[in-house]
């Protein structure tokens, strides 16, 4: 693993999802939506 000072930038990615009361949370038996809302 590299030990020298790096020129790489830190990476941080985070988005929020505004709750709309209509989010469907499923089990590991996901069903894709054939018919979108």
């Amino acid at each position: 693993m590299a030990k020298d000072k790096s020129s790489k930038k830190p990476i941080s990615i985070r988005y929020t999802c505004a709750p709309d009361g209509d989010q469907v949370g499923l089990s590991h038996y996901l069903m894709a939506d054939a018919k979108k809302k």
Partner: protein
Amino acid sequence: MSQAISPLWGPSQAGVNAGAGPHFDVLEVGHPDYVALINADTAFWVLSPRAEALDYLLSGELPKTYLEKEKKLAGDLETVRFKLLTSAVYFNPTERCNLDCGYCYLPREARRTGQDMDPARLLEALDKLQDFFVSTLPEGARPQLVFHGSEPLLAKDAVFKGIEQYGDYFRFGVQTNTVLLDKEAIEFLKAHGAGIGISLDGPTPEVADRTRRTWGGSGVFAQTVKVLEELVGYPGLNIITTVTKENVRSLPELVDFYHDRGVTNALFNPVRGTQLGGRNLMPDQTELAHYFFAALDRTFELYEKTGRKLVIGNFANLLLGLVAPGARRLMCDISPCGGGRCFFAVGASGEVAPCSEFLGLPEFHGGNLFTDSIKDLLATPAFKQVTTRMTENLEPCKRCAVRHFCGAPCPAEVYAFNGSLDAPAPLCDFYAAQARYAFKVIADGRLDALLWDGWKDGLEEIVVM
């Protein structure tokens, strides 16, 4: 003469890992340039250049900028963990199955000789479910109802009547082994916009038929592939591969098999050990990690080569758990899991359990759909055991940096192993490895390639660093 007071003796909010300061764990992610710095409580993370991780942690910049956004980050996770409305049902219209798969989560005797729900009874059930959701969901919301099994098409008349009568309200799906999915049935489901989930466990009959066989011992690979090829391109197609010790080494080859046929979305679900058959088929965790990640690497290679994605949905969901926890679709890898709070399961006699995995565990049934109030069912002690199971209360999860990217699944499986829900995931090592691999994917710049197109749509970015 006064001396300058060391900042180490001052307020601790801006310093890490003591007092009221934020806590960050350091996680090796197997990348040459990056390590992860993680605040486990809010599922916030930064991939720091490896050589500068200590500087980021101790300079004060990271804790300061983190604290400015902490409330928002915590609120986002709080919403997906505790505030989602129940909006999906897994509905078993029959106990019977025409296959005898080695890992089924339902007891074998029920699958062989169990009962069906007749059409009138099924319509009564849908009516009751609709009343419940109309009273609990926002106006215009359309809950999802997945006919599941056992094999739901053994009760095809009842299922199709339900879809015809309630298709304007529910978003329907059918998870089937394909044996009874003829052209007429496919056309019906397509015409009603129903999701169609099919199960396939390998790229060849030699592999796939090891676990998915009729009661007489014949494989169904050929029939399943025939249906798959008829359905490719249908937006409601979903394929589930259950990963066992019998097929784990074939996962990379299976990626090619699906990609060659134009499949765009599949699940590679490690088998649950809730029932003895599944337990006996669980793969070795190290081997599972190796071939699962090799399969994901292969999807990336094929994407680069062809421009076509094959998204492995359960891993994509974990990636979403890292970059947009509130947008995740699957609720197995977060705690509390979705069982009994985001969805519940209804068995063929009307028994209600937090999840299909619990249908074979009567001590977790909350009551009966036909005789009890759904609202009351969801609040029973049987359900509360599951809906209050949180990783921060479990050993060793409470010390784990990736506890909110794992969720210590699955409570049904954990109960089967331990006789208690207070234990980590039987595949704990695999889930930890999966989180590491996910961070490595991000560090490698492969995030978008392994997620669904448009995953950012409707989301708001929180910029911390």
